[in-house]
């Protein structure tokens, strides 16, 4: 990567973009299939909005939206991409599902998607590469400059437990109930370059850190950092990566709208000076959200207050209300607030479905019905 690519390209403030990693299932037992190449090949033959890309194993596919100003516009596009993908999948007799993990696949049966980069990752990380068959949503938020991006990263870090609890949809892994609402992030933790961005406040400071790491020969590009939130200079965005892929595009758009409204609030009102304490508490708060979801507890670094995640979220939603209304996210956040108040979550839906059907195959089947937009009937 040339230094040029580390120049922070300014983007119009508070625009959003969404990436979703999706599961490709077979329609026989609803285990993961291996048809990413055929699916992507077939989609390339037809015009559709957004972009469709391979991921680390052949059972995954990623969709990227373009740049959007608000909830309705990103949702509109996500629906179009989903529909295009559903049509292609049906021709190949495949199912597509959301959710942060596949409930019962065996990681050892996965195969690395044959590109140079993925082969290199597989050689480096061994079995972790195949275990990385988990599915996340990334939300990009446009920033005017690199300094803003770093401020936003440090501010958003306090809200990482919100993002985790709101998106949690990976209660099952390898055929077992993990007891976690989001078990996916435990898989990410195993990578040596996961974690958080360094505590620097200017883009120059960040460049210094990056060239030092590159000088050590540890990384070649920003892609090698698996941080929860990282800057993406060539897009001019901050990328939040802790979300599990939700079970529907509707939920994915709600999460993007929440991140956008929060970013708008933080960058406009600048409520705090970044504090290292956020990172001292970071792993504890993050664990609480992964383990208990909306029922978790959080310690606020700025007030030293212990508070329930759900309560903190409802407070935050009120705090950002004005910033949600401006780009037209008011209705979306009202919907999200209602869900939080009612304790509705994708992880909850998955567990209830298992309780009702007693079979993880059925859970995966209904998961794909939900994603593909068919009415879920048990």
């Amino acid at each position, binding site marked *: 990567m040339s230094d040029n690519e580390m120049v922070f390209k300014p983007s119009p403030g508070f625009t959003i973009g969404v990436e979703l990693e999706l599961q490709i299932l*077979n*329609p*026989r*037992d609803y285990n993961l*299939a*291996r*048809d990413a*190449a*055929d699916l992507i*090949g*077939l989609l390339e*033959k037809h015009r559709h909005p957004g972009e469709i890309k391979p991921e680390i194993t052949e059972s995954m596919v990623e969709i990227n939206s373009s740049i959007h100003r608000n909830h309705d516009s990103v949702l509109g596009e996500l629906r179009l991409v989903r529909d295009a993908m559903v049509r*292609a999948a*049906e*021709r*190949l*007799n495949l199912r597509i599902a959301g959710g942060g993990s596949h409930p019962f696949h065996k990681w050892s049966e996965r*195969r690395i998607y*044959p590109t140079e980069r993925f082969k290199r990752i597989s050689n480096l990380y061994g079995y972790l590469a195949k275990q990385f068959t988990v599915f996340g949503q990334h939300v990009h938020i446009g920033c005017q400059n690199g300094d803003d991006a770093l401020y936003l990263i440090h501010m958003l870090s306090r809200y990482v437990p919100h993002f985790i609890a709101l998106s949690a949809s990976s209660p099952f892994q390898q055929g077992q109930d993990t007891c976690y609402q989001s078990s996916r992030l435990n898989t990410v933790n195993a990578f040596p370059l996961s974690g958080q961005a360094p505590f620097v406040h200017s883009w120059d400071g960040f460049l210094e850190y990056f060239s030092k790491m590159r000088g050590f020969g540890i990384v070649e590009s920003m892609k090698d950092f698996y941080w929860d939130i990282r800057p993406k200079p060539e897009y001019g965005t901050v990328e939040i990566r802790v979300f599990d892929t939700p079970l529907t595009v509707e939920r994915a758009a709600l999460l993007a709208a929440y991140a956008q409204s929060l970013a708008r609030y933080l960058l406009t009102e600048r409520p705090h000076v970044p504090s290292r304490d956020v990172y001292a508490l970071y792993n504890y708060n993050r664990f609480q959200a992964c383990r208990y979801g909306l029922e978790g507890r959080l310690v606020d670094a700025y007030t030293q207050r212990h508070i329930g995640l759900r309560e903190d979220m409802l407070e935050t939603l009120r705090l950002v209300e004005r910033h949600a209304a401006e780009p037209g996210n008011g209705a979306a956040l009202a919907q999200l607030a209602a869900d939080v108040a009612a304790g509705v979550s994708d992880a909850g839906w998955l567990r209830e479905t298992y309780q009702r*059907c*007693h*079979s993880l*195959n*059925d859970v995966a*089947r209904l998961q794909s019905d939900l994603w593909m937009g068919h009415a879920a009937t048990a």
Partner: protein
Amino acid sequence: MSALNYLPSFPLPPNPLALFGLLLLAGLIGGELVKRVLHLPRITGYVLMGMLLSGLGLLNGKLIDEAWIFVDIALGLVLFELGRRLDLRWLRRDPWLLATGIFESALSFGFIYFALIYFDVQPLYAAVAAAIGISTSPMVVMLVAHEQGAEGQVTERALHLVAMNSVIAFVLVTMLLSWIHHEYHASWITAVLHPAYLLVGSLILGYAASMLTLLLSRWLGKSAERHFVLLLALIVVTVGVARMLELSVLLALLSFGVMARNLDARHDLMSVDISRVGQMFFVVLFVVSGAKLQLAELVTGGTLALIFIVARFVGKSIGVLSLTHFSGVRAGSAGMLCIALTPMSVLALTMVQGTASLYPDFAARLATIVLSAALILELIGPLAVQFALKQAGEAREEQQ
């Protein structure tokens, strides 16, 4: 009463259990040798071992009859599994796949028929041989796919094409029965009712088995272990009943599988893997089919066998190559599909088994045409499927 009457009397009576165990052992060793020495699929080794045993006179017709029960169980398991894989909704969503199945069947029939006619085979024999030639061996394709851990568009599409061409071949052969009956001056009632009985009876049996399966699976609840036993029980029962009623094991079990999946609107039946227990029966199946092949037939069949094989391959390939593109699969997949449809088994002849026992003369003449082709395809078929699935990138990764 002699002092030694607890000893067995000679010659020893054949014991089905000892026979089963020995065939299994022989197949295992043959498969392993072929895999290690020649790097060919194990299935080829099972078949070669069967040929060797029969060549040495160790596995004669009487013993083959004794072992047939295990062949039937294996057939039942494979055909049910294949039927269960057949997704009728897919054929609706991708009509090109359905069209490919029908077209390649029609072309392979046409090519074989006219090639045989050209080489002076009588039309009746040419037609029955061509109808048999439509079918790709479900056993070989299923088992190689399983052995290779293959998954993907080529694997799935090959299995769907196999299921379709097996059904089409069977229906055609059954309809040709009328012609055979007519040729042997049977009454027209026989000529009409026999095929009707086979088709309708086998379908009703398959339907009944699938309904019973779905009812019982709902009652048993979601338990992989119980559903596993349920399926084994009903598969064996259905094979047995089909034999008792002189119906078609192929059609009954295939339709049982198809209906167990496609009529399961409430998703009551779990997807359980029956191939692990099936494995031992499959080994015996291939040893026995090897034993039914005689090298001597290769000489008598000679040129005709080659003509049969080439015509069949060309017909299937034109059918697959001309339509697969429209299904939107990757370039190169169509070629691999053509190769994957190569296998044919001597067991395809069981489609005319009932009739053959009525008219032994007919069976003998048909055998000279088909058996030698079956012998060659039985040996190269597994290799062809393995090659196709590996080339398509759908086989399991080799352990490093």
